[in-house]
């Protein structure tokens, strides 16, 4: 039992060390972007990654944000009386539940489920079929072609997803207010009340969650993909391990940051 715990701890430690190594490699490769040729190939691959991880997630993001907006405002009405003078409380409830906690968490889960597993599968498949040899044959750096686009696109995607998710949630929660209320609260009033609740610290924390969380998720997906060996089942195992690690790390990051700043 104890030896199993020790083995798991060693494995988790080696994953963290590997991810820190990838972070170092990414930072070390950044100066290559000063060369115009490298920059134009990076830009092409970055746009491709951003499109796949950020923009193509818009539909699922919209559906979940709509449902959440409806749910949150229904719950708000369950605990706060239905009256125009309580608009600040509606906004506060929305801000605490959606903006601080559930919005970032669900956006991160969507990024892990859609894009991170796709990156792990792509890299794992390439590793399985020795396609990195093909990259060596044309003398291109795998760090610039695979690592940097993910390293930059994942945090940007997560930030876009936070923003987009919150926007949709605001609109659908307002739709619920319209449905319950007999007039009196306009969309402008509601947005003004929300903005009054929002502090610089909350914006900074959300950005930190997107930046650190996006990097962590992206680097972990590459790390697990790159560690695929010779068996076909290694790819599915890599995706499974990668998602488990990412979910754990992203939850810890979210809860940790919220705990440190808000409580």
């Amino acid at each position, binding site marked *: 039992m104890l030896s199993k715990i020790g083995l798991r701890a060693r494995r988790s430690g080696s994953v963290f060390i590997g991810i820190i190594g990838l972070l170092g490699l990414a930072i070390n490769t950044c100066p290559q972007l000063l060369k115009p*040729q*490298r920059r134009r*190939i990076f830009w092409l691959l970055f746009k491709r990654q951003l499109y796949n991880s950020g923009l193509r997630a818009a539909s699922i993001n919209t559906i979940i944000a709509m449902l959440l907006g409806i749910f949150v405002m229904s719950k708000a009405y369950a605990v706060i009386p239905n009256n125009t003078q309580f608009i600040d409380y509606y906004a506060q409830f929305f801000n605490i539940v959606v903006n601080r906690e559930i919005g970032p968490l669900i956006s991160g889960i969507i990024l892990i489920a859609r894009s991170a597993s796709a990156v792990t599968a792509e890299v794992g498949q390439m590793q399985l079929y020795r396609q990195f040899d093909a990259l060596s044959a*044309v*003398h*291109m750096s795998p760090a*610039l072609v695979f690592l940097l686009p993910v390293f930059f696109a994942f945090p940007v995607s997560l930030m876009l997803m936070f923003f987009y998710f919150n926007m949709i949630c605001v609109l659908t929660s307002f739709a619920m207010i319209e449905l319950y209320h007999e007039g009196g609260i306009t969309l402008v009033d509601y947005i003004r009340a929300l903005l009054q609740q929002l502090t610089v610290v909350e914006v900074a924390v959300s950005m930190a969650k997107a930046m650190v969380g996006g990097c962590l998720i992206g680097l972990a997906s590459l790390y697990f993909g790159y560690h695929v060996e010779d068996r076909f089942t290694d790819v599915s195992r890599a995706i499974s391990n990668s998602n488990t690690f990412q979910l754990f790390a992203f939850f810890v990051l979210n809860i940790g940051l919220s705990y440190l700043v808000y409580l």
Partner: protein
Amino acid sequence: MMRLKLDDITLQFADKAIFQGLNLHLKPAEIVCVQTGVLDGGSSLLKLAAGLLTPDRGHVVVDGLAMKDMTEQARFGATCMAFEAGGLLSIFTNYNNIAFPLLYHTDMSKKAIAQRIEPLAEALQIQSLLQLEPHQLNDVQTRMMNLLRAMVFRPKLLLLDEVQSGMSFEMRENMLNVLLTEQQSQGYSVLMTTTVGDRTDFADRTLAITGGKLEPIQ
């Protein structure tokens, strides 16, 4: 100056010795064919010359520069290997497998790259395959795409791994015709592995791997 110098090369995988004291010198614009059998090290020979494998002993020198000391930019200008199988990244189209390395290593515009790729693809009769993905190609088409990429890069030394395998007579004649015309106009050297039934009559020299060394074929 020799285009390629493989001096006293020893290569071993686990306990299997592939090359022992192998030597090969290629002059500029020289074409050398190496007849290979099963698992006798033909692909490994090309990978050594391309810098994709490091010998256990010996030196690989292209145009006076040791392969191990070259930057990736210098290697790009020095050699390009056309693989017998694979060699293309599955996440890009065939066209981008050729265009992206050029974007990466050179100042060429996308238009200039297209102007270099398309006529050669047309000459090799594989233009319609450019927008497909690698998994949509059969073995022969994959080898042709690898060959096209190597020719488009215009390195000093082309390394072609069993490029003639599996081709119909007409296809092979056309491919060799295009290759030899390009080779004469660009002046690159060619090291090509061949197998039973392949043509070698166009080569300046034909060698065979025997006992971990290269021997001339009379």
